[in-house]
């Protein structure tokens, strides 16, 4: 019996196959395991090591490097209070003091009810709404002491369950068709790339020719315009591809 659930194991194996070297999947696998348990249990570390072919000490060593991976148990909610410059100027330290008091634990600790773990964080890239707090990587801006208390009440009451999943969950909607990019998709992308490149080259050549001729030949002008138009068309096609890929759910844009 493995510690990781069958579903997690399945996804883990798929991830491992994505990379030329299994060990490249180490960090993604840590996130997977953390999604299951909220933190990286020793059992999970041992299984990840097995999956990617390194020693458990190496998994632990790598995981301990990253703040988003926890090698100690954490509460259901990890509350990260930004203390970087923008937030600091707008009262982050006072807020942090309040958070600690309200939750009954200091930075790095977990509240007595086991629900909340407090962290101080560097800039969360939400400076426009400073001071800012992230709960399980979902952002809450313009946080005051009162708003924080309300947020805690909401979380405890389960009113925010849709927006704030348990700790460890990075995304809640996955791409269809698993993690692998299909071979045909890759081939299509390659073809499009080649076409774009060819078109761009043709345009360049045509332009150069036109200049070399140094004549305001109407026919040459016509050709150059055509080529430029073709290149634009290819760019648009690429943009559409990118839009297709962005189907993960956006982090909840909370606030109280």
């Amino acid at each position: 019996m493995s510690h990781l659930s069958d579903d997690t194991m399945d996804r883990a194996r798929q991830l491992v196959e994505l990379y030329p070297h299994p060990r490249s999947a180490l960090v993604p696998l840590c996130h997977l395991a953390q999604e299951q348990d909220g933190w990286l249990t020793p059992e999970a570390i041992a299984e990840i090591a097995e999956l990617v072919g390194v020693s458990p000490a190496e998994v632990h060593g790598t995981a301990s490097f990253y703040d988003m991976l926890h090698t100690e148990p954490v509460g259901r909610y990890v509350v990260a209070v930004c203390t970087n410059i923008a937030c600091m100027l707008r009262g982050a330290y006072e807020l942090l003091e309040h958070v600690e008091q309200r939750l009954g634990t200091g930075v790095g600790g977990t509240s007595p009810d086991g629900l909340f773990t407090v962290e101080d964080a560097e800039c969360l890239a939400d400076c426009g709404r400073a001071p800012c707090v992230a709960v399980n990587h979902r952002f809450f801006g313009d946080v005051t002491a009162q708003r924080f208390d309300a947020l805690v009440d909401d979380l405890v009451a389960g009113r925010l369950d849709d927006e704030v999943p348990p700790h460890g969950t990075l995304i809640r909607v996955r791409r269809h068709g698993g993690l692998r990019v299909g071979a045909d998709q890759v081939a299509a992308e390659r073809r499009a790339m080649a076409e774009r490149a060819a078109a761009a080259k043709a345009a360049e050549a045509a332009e150069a020719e036109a200049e070399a001729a140094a004549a305001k030949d109407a026919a040459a002008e016509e050709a150059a315009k055509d080529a430029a138009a073709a290149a634009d068309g290819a760019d648009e096609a690429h943009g559409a591809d990118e839009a297709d890929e962005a189907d993960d759910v956006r982090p909840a844009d909370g606030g109280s």
Partner: protein
Amino acid sequence: MADPVVTSHHARAPEAAPGDVVRVTIDGRVVEASPGQFLIAVAEQAGTFIPRFCYHPRMKPVGMCRMCLVEVAGPRGATLQPACYLPVTDGMEVVTTSDKVRKAQDGVLEFLLVNHPLDCPVCDKGGECPLQDQVLSYGPGESRFVEEKRHWAKPTPISDLVLLDRERCIQCGRCVRFAAEVSGEAEIDFAGRGDQVEVAIFEKQPFSSYFSGNTVQICPVGALTATPYRFTARPWDVEQVESTCTTCALGCRVAVQSSANRFTRMLGVDSDPVNQSWLCDKGRFASASASSPDRLTEPLVREDSGELRPATWEHALSTVARRLAAARDEHGAASIGLIGGARLTNEDAYAWCRLAKGVLGTDSVDCQLGDGLPAELVLGLPRATLDDARTAKVVVVVSGDVRDELPVLFLRLRQAVVDGGTRLVELGSVPGSLGTLDVAVGHRAGDAPAVARALAARGACPAGVDPVQWGEALSALSVAGEDGAGVVVLVGRPSLAEHSSVAAATARVLAGAWPAARFLPVLRRGNVFGALDMGLAPGLLPGRVTLDAGRDWFSAAWGQVPARSGLDCAGMLGAATDGTLAALVLVGADPLGDFPDRGLADQALEQAPFVVAVDGFLSPSAARADVVLPVPLAHERSGTTTNVEGRVTRVAQKLVAPGQSWPDWVVAVELAARLGCDLPYSSVSDLWDEIEQLSSAHRGLTRSVLDSLAQRDGVLVPLAGTPVVLSRRPPAPIDPIATPGIESVERQGAPLRAGLAEPLGGSDDEAVVAAAAAAVRGERAEVTAGRGEPAEAGPQVGPEPLRAGAGGPETAAAGAPAAPAGSPGALEGQAAEGQAAAPSAEGSPPERHQRPAMLRALPEAPVPALPPTDGYGLRLVARRTLYDDGVAVDVNEHLASLVPPLQARFHPADLAPSAGPERSLRIRLRSRRGVVTVDALADPSVARGTVVVPFNVGGDGAEGGAARLIGADDVVVDVRMETVAP
């Protein structure tokens, strides 16, 4: 093959054609180097030391600590670059002492000390610490940091032998790199980030490596300390001597350190051909066992009451002499048997061989305990050197797990497979540490000869072998020649439950099919190869000659040699049980622990009329002897030892043996005297001189050669017939930062120097080498230089065979004692083209005739037929483990806990009827010989139908463990599993 991942942080030096030379200017001096060398090493060779922490000459550079920054001219002016990470290129201009460099060094050291606790007064490393030393030499002198340092609980154990002090760690990465890169067990790694970086183990898995002690040796600060050494000494308190580890047959070079006749520690010396500075933990820490209170300190004699009581040497020796003489007179010399001798130095072994074969006249002598290979096969196989094995195209392994048998050989071969492109194919019924690196071909125990034959013929996949593995094995082999060119075979005993004839047949098959292949016999006892070279085996005489080939030569020198071949260990134990063995001498042998058939060993010791044990401990077998004679152990004696490849190195005495111990050779000489024969040895040097004079394999290897600094790494024998492999360049001096403990002690006034009992102050002159080379060719050459001595010693150094006329009855009957040996009559027939000086009586001019030819032919080794398995469906595989119940581990408080439990491993499918796959359960294993109760464990790597049990590992109430199940004559052992009522 190994994981092809290339970790990008390793600098890769460009490939260079041999012979290419680049010129580098270092501080204005032009220095020549070969391309690909790293700047730090080139500078060091040129006499410019660049400070460093993370760089270690035996590991890949990582450029992590920045201590080695130097200025290197480039297109954009001079820039600071790490010398350890920079391969030299032609025209490179380097400055190592500019203001900019000094400022960089100041900065690096100031930063390293920001969090360093500076608890030098209570730190093991204090006085030999590269951080201390380099801060003093290159540091700014004072720090601008006044902030609180980081604090951590300390020390924390990372293994049973190593403690970690995270506050002292400077994150050089040497230890974690050693674990990942050298030993291949990345059980320690950095954890955390920024100033919170720490070396850490995974909480559920300690750093259980067999090689953990090396991390302590290379840690450049006191962050890693060894539990056994902690707080025992300071570098300025200790003395040291260079010696050879004799815990196994690899013979790693070591520095042995002691304080006031108390062993403190052993450190690895960098010997390029052998251990490249690494040691295994058993070798490193087992020496401490010598100072155990359990050591024997006085002779013991069994009294009429049946008790072993302390006695005087005189009483003990005359008892032994009287009983041995009586046995010889009443039952003939062949009724005396001698087991053991692999613990001895070459000189001790030679003295005991002469006592047994030349004085007592018995050929029943065996330095192996039924756990090795036939002696003539070992000597007859074309031997590989360790470097041959490391550079082989393909290594074929048919032996026990090399990591357990010859641990540091595993490191060398692992490196060859992982980094050097050597392919490796292992045959066996359970994959070993080497097989898991490349190709492991699983087969049923007992089938090895057939599988080997198919492999050599590159034939079809034999029955019972996985076709996929077979395909991989054949493809690995494809890089080797049809005739075995480029192949090195490691041949040993994959299982002690398999008769040695199976292993012998396997080796014979491979040697026959691959005439160009070379072999390394995986025998692990300390000086087993030296003992074999000294003739401690049935049918052999010193110098790798057979009894028949050497009869005339040695009868002339010794007065007599046995007429017929004698018994091996199993034969002697068998003879003891049927009453034909009258006396048994155990020289550092413990058949109860080591002989594969515990039942036979038990019965033999029970029934042998007279047993003498010559030992440092009262081993279980010694406890059953009639007389026990105490002798020195490792580091308490001097002499030479011979390793697995035939390398003769010096063993130096550092400690005085406890109590009244007498060196083994003295015991032999004293016994001989009491048997009426004076052996002419008054020192170890006398013995070596005689070996050099008489042995065909050691001709030319005089004391002055052995003692010269240029031969510090030892000399490969046999010398005769091979090009002289004497080194002309002294090995590099001890690296102060790579192995700080050795160099610092030297700096404190205890130089690292090994010598024979009477060192000659060895000359490093070419003349010594020339003289040795001449002697090997059989010519006479004088050493003219300094304090050397003639390579072919004059008559006064020659042996004086059987000086006295008071021989025992049988010796007298042989007619030898009165006549000076080497009498022309005995030798005439051989005098034709011989060159070397003959053994001669005192004062008479040396005769000229030929030394006997060394054994070259391989003995026949027929493939034994396997018995039917009726009713006993599981085949037993008994594997040796590094730590077992042997006495050196048993009495060692730090190692005893590392002995694995007595667990039987099965393929899950074989265990399924009785247990869930992950449950361990108590079962009984029953063979035709006996029953043992063990814990059963499922292990998917074990082949179906096989049960794997560690050998000489006791477990509760199962005294004798696996050896209870094994019969000495069984070709293979089949067992069945019985459940035990809970």
